């Protein structure tokens, strides 16, 4: 092997209070290699990157660069060692020129030779074939060009290792192509590139090797040709294909004369959140779900259904009648409830009491001029505190002082109180303890057998299989398949997420 080991990270440990974010993780990067770092949320990708760039200090382990051990205590150390990072959000100054952005904060800062700076910037831009003028204001460049300028800035700092953390999430296809061209050029120059992304297609287009992390542990390092997509998805999700193919969820069958009535139907629905138009329907008493990797557009789809994002196209029918859903209140009026993905940001009203949080949605439905009496509000709150077994000191306790699982139950209570016909649960079990998770799954099945239609989204495929009778599979912000009946297996989900091996 004539591979030259540029970067070696060995036995990296990092613990945060209560979480072992990285456990003995190894990572190796060769010269002139594009190396994908893959894993679901919470796998430890960003922690590893932050240890490497000096944002976090590691608890144990060694980092070797060019065979010599380096100590990285700050982002400045990392830069001096030749490790540059380009983050998802562009961290440049849009009001300065391209050249200024490339050279800002460098040199000894006494005198700036503007002409020399512009000349050097121009040379670099030409060398990297970036379509921008050195003196142009950065804000006038497209996002892709800004991203490339950020990379140019990183490279000019004599970088050996370039870390690209989700650089493509805000780019369109042509812009991504340009970026990949630049990455290949850099690879030819011998720069080692660490590429973090959620897009599988991109990994297979541009990378040489893949390192997979899961739950803070190294799953393995693979040559791209040795790891088919299905295998990669399996490794990321932590399920081996063979083990899982025969696991079946315990579906409780639901029978009713009106079981095939379409409670909700959408045709070519599209929102401003960047998803491709999609078709969707749900029957009465059905539990279905959107599945796909993180960032595949699952949440965006249900947000479009509820009117949480701005709907920009498509037709919607509720119980066969055409309706218009522009804002959450429209959806609520049509009997649709939505438990959002991010409980803290979109769900709870932190300083208000459990009681006020529970009655909020129903109160809004009832109307501004018809507040519930205190007695009514307490009755509602106490009923659901008991029903969902919410652990709270009293109905007057501020919701923010409850544990995550109990906060989630309060939000669930809020929507159940509305007695919706169609309930959307977006990651209702994220970040809560196992007991509560099972409670919520049981509740979902129970509600469905009572005739409520439910869309259930979860990052844990197990959960989806246990609860859903039909899964809509998403990849790269579009619906790529639908599974039901016998196709509802881990392996089918994975192969559908991964997509055809052949589509290059």
């Amino acid at each position, binding site marked *: 092997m004539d591979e030259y080991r540029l970067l070696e990270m060995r036995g990296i440990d990092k613990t945060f209070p209560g979480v072992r974010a990285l456990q003995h993780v190894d990572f190796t990067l060769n010269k002139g290699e594009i190396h994908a770092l893959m894993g679901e949320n919470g796998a430890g990708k960003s922690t590893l990157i932050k240890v490497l760039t000096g944002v976090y200090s590691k608890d144990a382990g060694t980092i070797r660069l060019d065979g010599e051990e380096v100590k990285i205590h700050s982002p400045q150390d990392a830069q001096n060692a030749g490790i540059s990072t380009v983050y998802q959000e562009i961290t440049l100054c849009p009001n300065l020129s391209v050249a200024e952005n490339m050279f800002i904060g460098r040199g000894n800062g006494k005198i700036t030779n503007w002409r020399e700076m512009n000349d050097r910037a121009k040379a670099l831009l030409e060398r990297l074939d970036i379509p921008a003028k050195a003196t142009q204001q950065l804000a006038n460049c497209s996002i892709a060009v800004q991203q490339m300028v950020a990379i140019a800035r990183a490279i000019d700092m004599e970088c050996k290792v370039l870390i690209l953390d989700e650089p493509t999430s805000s780019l369109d296809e042509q812009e991504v192509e340009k970026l990949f061209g630049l990455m290949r050029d850099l690879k030819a120059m011998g720069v080692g590139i660490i590429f973090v992304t959620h897009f599988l297609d991109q990994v297979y287009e541009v990378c040489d090797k893949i390192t997979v992390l899961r739950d803070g542990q190294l799953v393995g390092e693979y040559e791209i040709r040795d790891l088919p997509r299905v295998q990669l998805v399996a490794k990321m999700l932590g399920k081996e294909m063979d083990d899982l193919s025969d696991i079946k969820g315990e579906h409780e069958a639901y029978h009713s004369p009106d079981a095939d009535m379409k409670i909700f139907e959408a045709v070519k629905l599209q929102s401003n959140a960047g998803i491709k138009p999609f078709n969707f329907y749900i029957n009465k008493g059905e539990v279905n779900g959107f599945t796909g990797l993180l960032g595949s557009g699952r949440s965006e789809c249900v947000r479009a259904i509820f009117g949480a994002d701005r709907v920009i196209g498509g037709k919607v029918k509720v119980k066969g009648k055409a309706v218009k859903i522009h804002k959450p209140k429209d959806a609520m009026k049509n009997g649709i409830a939505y438990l959002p993905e991010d409980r803290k940001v979109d*769900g709870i009203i932190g*300083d208000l009491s459990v009681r006020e949080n529970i009655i909020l949605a129903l109160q809004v439905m009832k109307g501004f001029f018809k*507040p519930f009496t205190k007695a009514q509000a307490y009755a509602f709150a106490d009923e659901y505190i008991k029903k969902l077994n919410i652990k709270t000191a009293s109905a007057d306790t501020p919701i923010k002082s409850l544990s995550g699982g109990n906060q989630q139950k309060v939000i669930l209570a809020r929507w159940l109180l509305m007695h919706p016909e169609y309930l959307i649960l977006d990651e209702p079990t994220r970040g809560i303890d196992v007991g509560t998770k099972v409670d919520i799954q049981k509740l979902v099945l129970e509600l469905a057998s009572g005739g409520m239609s439910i869309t259930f989204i979860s990052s844990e495929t197990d959960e989806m299989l246990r609860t859903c009778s039909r899964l809509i599979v998403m990849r790269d912000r579009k619906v790529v398949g639908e599974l039901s009946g016998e196709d509802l297996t881990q392996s089918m989900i994975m192969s559908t997420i991964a997509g055809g091996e052949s589509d290059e």
Partner: protein
Amino acid sequence: MSNNDTKAPANKFLTVVKKVVSHQMFIPIMALLILAIVNLAFDPNFFKITLGKNNAGNPILSGPLITILDYGAETAILAIGMTLVTAAAGGQDISVGATIAIAGSAMLRVLCGTNPSPDTIQAPIIVAFLVACLVGMACGAFNGALVSFFKIQPMIATLILFTAGRSIAAWINLNKLPVVPDPKFAYFGGIIPGIPVPTPIFIMIACVLIMALILKFTNLGLYTQSVGINEKSAKLNGINPILIKFIAFVILGLCVAVAALIKVSRISTINYSVIAKDIEMDAILAVALGGNALSGGKFNMWASILGAYVFQFLTTTLYKFNIASSALPAYKATVVILLVFFSAPKVRETIGKGFKKLKESIGKSSKGAAGKASEGEA
């Protein structure tokens, strides 16, 4: 056993004390009490209210307490609107002084027409007041639109009218200072013949009552707090945050019109550059003194109104002590900083925690003592 019996009530007492101390109304009520005691100590007649006659021979109650209630009325009324704006938008309206000038000027324009000193009023007072209400609400709507639709920082948005308001007020009456000839107009800022209590007190009470009814019979409180605490959540629950913020500003505009009526009525004319000067800061302080977070969210309307009176009480007290008027602001500032410090949610939380610890330590020591006693018996 006897030991435990004596400790238990002490514990209970501490729990009650903690509840009282950590209540939002505690600081403003405490401040009022301290001010009252200080005043009583130096002047036993402080609370004496005498029934006298004014120049026109009408009966009038007088005494420091009446003065406080009378002159604090405008700030208290503004505090109502300011509390809503603060809660919903997480910022303050600094233009209320200037908009009082605008609303007051509009009122005078309707009452006096183009003649600065007419012999009779040109329109009924009620019409003038309704016009002032419309003008006040229009100013509120302007501020509200900037804050809610265009997402401009409340202070920046209201800076526009803060700067331009008094010029607009002067322009409405072409820079003349009309004087209202009708003595009835003076009733609103003075007294109604035969009723010895100053009218502003009644107006203030009416405003507070109306607000109490609104808060009881609508969801204004719940919606406003939801928007102030978590706008995204509120939106996903079907509340329209833009509308709620806008309404808060319009309500403040209405409060401005009422305050303008009192202010203008007190002197039956207007002085564009000094009318209601700095009253916006007093209203904001009232909200803060009431222990409401200026960053928005949860609010307690009654605490704000009390806060307004704490401030007026302080001012009257300082006047009584013959503090040089040039030194007055410094004294006020000192007291205000103390009050704001103690009513800050963070400080109240810490005090609450302190009590908890105290309680625990008492609990422990009583247990320890009981343990030792039983050992001794053995």
